[in-house]
């Protein structure tokens, strides 16, 4: 049983923002509820009000907007795994969305909700960082873009201000030579380690972006590992991938817990980086 709460059903982002500002910590945005309701059932959080954002229009769905793919924050994982635009432009993201949790969570859970809850053991954030995505945060009077690598700050903490609403996620359309891959590992219900890699392949490997997630409190980009591979030929890059993997492992901020020891997770990061890189190359 959940504790009683009042349901608010605003119809505009400005209204949502106003409610958040007015009620502060006693109110919370509610979309798919796949994370929020679990925490509420456990008694870990309590709210006097839930703000149902599913009546807002124009915030779900995928469309091509110039040089970027625009994903509405209210898009469910199921919508994303089925999206023709994503299948054409961002197949790595489609594969990720196909493998989020299980079919029921994908049906109800939204990408925006996943990013805003910022549960450490989650998939999308890691790949979105590697793809150079930007999050659009809105409130009544303003709108700003936050780079994915700055959006996920810490475990259960984002860069959103208390009265800001995540409305869209912009993912740059990769170049024709663009390659990307996301691999995850875990044997518990949530993933233990996730690694994403993206780059352009034009003889040499360029524009390398590497991100590691799930092992630490929030997904992180690993510029040091990227630098090792940047500008190298395909074979040279493969030759240095183990070194890059070790650096990425250390950068993952892995901590020993039920998902595995720190050393084990750091090792898995290296394994996944190599495989993701090879997968992206093929």
């Amino acid at each position, binding site marked *: 049983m*959940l504790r009683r709460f009042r*349901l608010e059903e605003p119809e505009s982002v400005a209204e949502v923002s106003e409610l958040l500002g007015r009620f502060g910590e006693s109110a919370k945005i509610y979309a798919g509820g796949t994370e929020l309701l*679990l925490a509420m*059932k456990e008694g870990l959080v309590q709210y006097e009000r839930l703000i149902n954002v599913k009546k807002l229009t124009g915030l779900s769905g995928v469309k091509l907007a110039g040089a970027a793919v625009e994903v509405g924050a209210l898009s469910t994982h199921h919508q994303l795994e089925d999206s023709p635009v994503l299948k054409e432009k961002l197949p790595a993201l489609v594969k990720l969305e*196909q493998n989020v*949790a*299980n*079919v029921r*969570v994908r049906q*109800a859970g939204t990408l925006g909700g996943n990013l805003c809850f910022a549960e450490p053991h989650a998939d999308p954030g890691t790949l979105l960082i590697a793809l150079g995505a930007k999050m659009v945060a809105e409130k009544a009077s303003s709108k700003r873009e936050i780079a994915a690598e700055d959006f996920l700050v810490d475990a259960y903490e984002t860069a959103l201000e208390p009265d800001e609403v995540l409305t869209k996620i912009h993912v740059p359309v990769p170049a024709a030579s663009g390659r990307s891959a996301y691999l995850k590992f875990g044997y518990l219900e949530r993933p233990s380690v996730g690694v994403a890699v993206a780059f352009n392949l034009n003889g040499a490997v360029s524009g390398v972006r590497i991100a590691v997630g799930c092992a630490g409190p929030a997904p992180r980009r690993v510029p040091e590992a990227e630098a090792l591979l940047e500008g190298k030929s395909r074979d040279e890059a493969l030759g240095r991938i183990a070194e890059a993997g070790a650096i990425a492992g250390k950068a993952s901020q892995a901590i020993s817990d039920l998902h595995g020891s720190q050393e084990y997770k750091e090792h898995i990061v290296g394994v996944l980086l190599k495989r993701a890189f090879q997968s992206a190359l093929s």
Partner: protein
Amino acid sequence: MAKAMTKRSDAQSIPVSFTLNGRLQEIEVEPHELLLDVVREQLGLTGAKRSCDVQVCGACTLLVDGRPVSACTTLAFEVRGRSVLTIEGLAQDGKLHPLQEAFIEHGGFQCGFCTPGMILAAKALLDENPDPSEAQLKHFMHGNICRCTGYKKIIESIMAAAKKMRGQAR
């Protein structure tokens, strides 16, 4: 101290009009009520089970607009304007659904606790993909857990039902 089941005067009441197993239902729920509790307690349909309560096991699976949801983690008011299918609504005029027949014929259940959820999830799979490969079946059914059968018979049951349903569709 006895727990009062009557609604408080200041409780927020949400009218929920929806189709349940093909019939129109009009109920009122409070925002915090979970779909699983409303279906089991208020509507008396106990096929769906509360098992893990964290949407991992699938024993509470219901179909809302043909898609599987975890009733344990769905607020009841979310079904307003939608159609809900429970295991009790699968058989038509006393005739079992091919999935139900297949589960019986192929031994797809033992204790039966996971079975309502398993069958409804399988129905959603076959409605979306009438001829799934075993890999596709396993991927879709990944979120439904069974502790008894070891899954082999469940897969056989679903594949057999799928074949029968494809035959009937012609």
